[in-house]
């Protein structure tokens, strides 16, 4: 017994300590995922039999394919604008301008506000009688009519950016702050102007942080639900489509919803694989840029 314990103790202890986490992981992730996969191949409303109909119906329907394109458009649009917003904002916040702690807190606000509340707030703010349009129509000359933001594609991307850009911003900012400023000073001493320092030194060095944050933003935007449900108008991405299959018809179309969920999951994994390959190639993940 003692010899057995001596030989296997490390493995057993590790296993016992990991057991709760493994049980949780299998119970909370693998089991539901497994059930979803099974259900996606069942004929609608049946507990026996196999079919591919749930997949073929969705993928052969032009509306289904449009939903997939739309989901990518929204997620990619949101990611691109998040990067464009995060980099300059991080550069400003790094300088510790007056009130920078307040601004840093503000950046995190979208992460702590529930999506549904955020969406309703944004609808009110950008509405034709919201503050944004009141400001434009009453204070800006030549603006006679309210600018339409709610329920438009560009408006929805804007809402996504508000909600998900903190992922990119926080990682970019932390990478930027961990940067050794003497490298920039060396660049300046060597005769580079501020733009050249930024272009040739800072940006390449913070690229890993930007890419890591942007992948988080992309994933969150790809799975967005509350915002497009409330503020999407006719633009309803995959998550809303899944919800619609369950919430609207009675009995619910669980098999159809499961098939769309699996398609969504596979697309996310595929994109993630491609993205990580791109990140590795650019030297992002390993910090090779440095």
């Amino acid at each position, binding site marked *: 017994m003692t010899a057995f*314990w*001596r030989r296997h*103790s490390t493995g*057993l*202890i590790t296993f*016992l*300590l990991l057991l*709760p986490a493994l049980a949780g992981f299998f119970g909370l992730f693998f089991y539901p995922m497994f059930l979803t996969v099974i259900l996606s191949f069942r004929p609608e409303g049946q507990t026996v039999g196999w079919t591919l109909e749930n997949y073929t119906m969705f993928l052969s329907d032009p*509306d289904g394919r449009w939903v997939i394109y739309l989901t990518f458009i929204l997620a990619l649009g949101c990611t691109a604008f998040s990067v464009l917003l995060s980099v300059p904002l991080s550069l400003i916040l790094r300088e510790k301008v007056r009130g920078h702690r307040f601004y840093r807190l503000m950046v995190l606000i979208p992460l702590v506000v529930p999506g549904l509340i955020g969406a*309703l707030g944004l*609808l*009110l703010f950008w*509405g*034709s*009688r919201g503050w944004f349009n009141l400001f434009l129509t009453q204070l800006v000359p030549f603006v006679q009519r309210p600018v339409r933001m709610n*329920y438009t594609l560009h408006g929805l991307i804007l809402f996504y950016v508000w909600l998900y850009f903190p992922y990119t911003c926080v990682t970019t900012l932390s990478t930027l702050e961990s940067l050794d400023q003497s490298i920039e000073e060396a660049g300046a001493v060597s005769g580079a102007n501020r733009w050249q320092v930024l272009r040739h030194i800072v940006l390449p060095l913070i690229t890993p942080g930007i890419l890591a944050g942007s992948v988080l933003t992309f994933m969150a935007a790809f799975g967005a639900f509350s915002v497009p*449900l*409330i503020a*999407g*108008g*006719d633009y309803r991405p995959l998550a809303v489509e899944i919800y*619609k299959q*369950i*919430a*609207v*018809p*009675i*009995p*619910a179309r*669980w098999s159809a919803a499961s098939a769309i969920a699996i398609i969504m999951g596979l697309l996310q994994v595929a994109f993630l694989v491609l993205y990580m390959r791109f990140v590795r190639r650019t030297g992002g993940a390993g910090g090779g840029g440095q």
Partner: protein
Amino acid sequence: MKSRMSITILLVISGLVCIPLATPGPAQAGAPTELVMVDSQSGANFQAYWQKYVIPAVKQSLGVNLKYLVSSDAEQIQKVKAWKPGLGDAHILFPKSIASWVKSGVPLETLNTSNIPNSAKIDPQYLKTDEGVELQSKAVLYWRTSYALIYNSQYIKNPPKSWKEFYNRRAEFKDHIGLIRPDAKSSAAWRQRLTFLHGFLREKMAMPMAQLEKDPAFQDAWNKLKDFTKYAKAPLPAEPPNLFEDFNAGETWIALYAQDYSLWSARQGTMPPTIKAVYPEEGADEIGTGYLAVFDNIPPEYKEVALKVVNYLLSDDQQIRLLTTMWQYPGTDITDQAPAIAWEMVPKLDVLTKTAIPRERIQKDIIDYIKGHAKELLP
């Protein structure tokens, strides 16, 4: 090594001790004091009402703590189907569509005057069917709600008096008609269309859907509905909060919606104060229903308390409160007991029932048809 081994053993023992502590024990002696109530019917106004008024009243009067769970019919039906006999963990149901529940075959307790004495005050026609489905005594009526054409008097001085007139004057309201998306979760999604169709089809709506679908009058009404949709404010609001926001923004001027919710929203400031209601003269408004049921597959001691709670919810005090607090019509016939002030806000129920769509014309098949053909009804 010894200390690692001791820590491991300690962790395992702690886990083994904690698991039984965290697991709910067997039912204690005496009647249960905590029940779970599932609500897939209430909108935001009534979700607040349940938590603010009803649950505290139940606690005070019966000593029962109601755990209030907002859910959807589809999700809950799926859950209840998985229950083992007698082990259900939710007890009272307030569904969006009792017809869907009865049709799904999920076991519900039979309710009658012997276990729910206050159900004697409910008009028997409401206990017999809903959405054209025989209720088989599986539910009791909790409330009735009225739908009306809600309009903003700031923009509309002469509202249409019927659906036909509304359709004929549709160009006048172009881009300002509020139609909720036909694939929305809210029941307004199908109610708005159903009442529109009824304005043109009347008694034909009582026909079986398979027969009605082939009727030229139905095709004509359906085409009118599709055409009418083109005059609605686009994009169609996804859910009621969007509709209200459109009203607030001045983009929507008129829509068929629940009278109680509209009045409540105006009071909350989420609808313009200039909101008014009109009841189309051709029977184009509808009396919506909300039913209470008790799950069958639950422990008997819980069922007994659940029945007491449902009976309490049908008591005169609770039913009048529906009217005086929320402008919602009671399920029981106690309107003569309501204070006169209540009728200053809403018309008496008998006024509405004269113009309401007869219940046999509100068929689940038509509702399912509208939901199933939602794509055609998007502009």
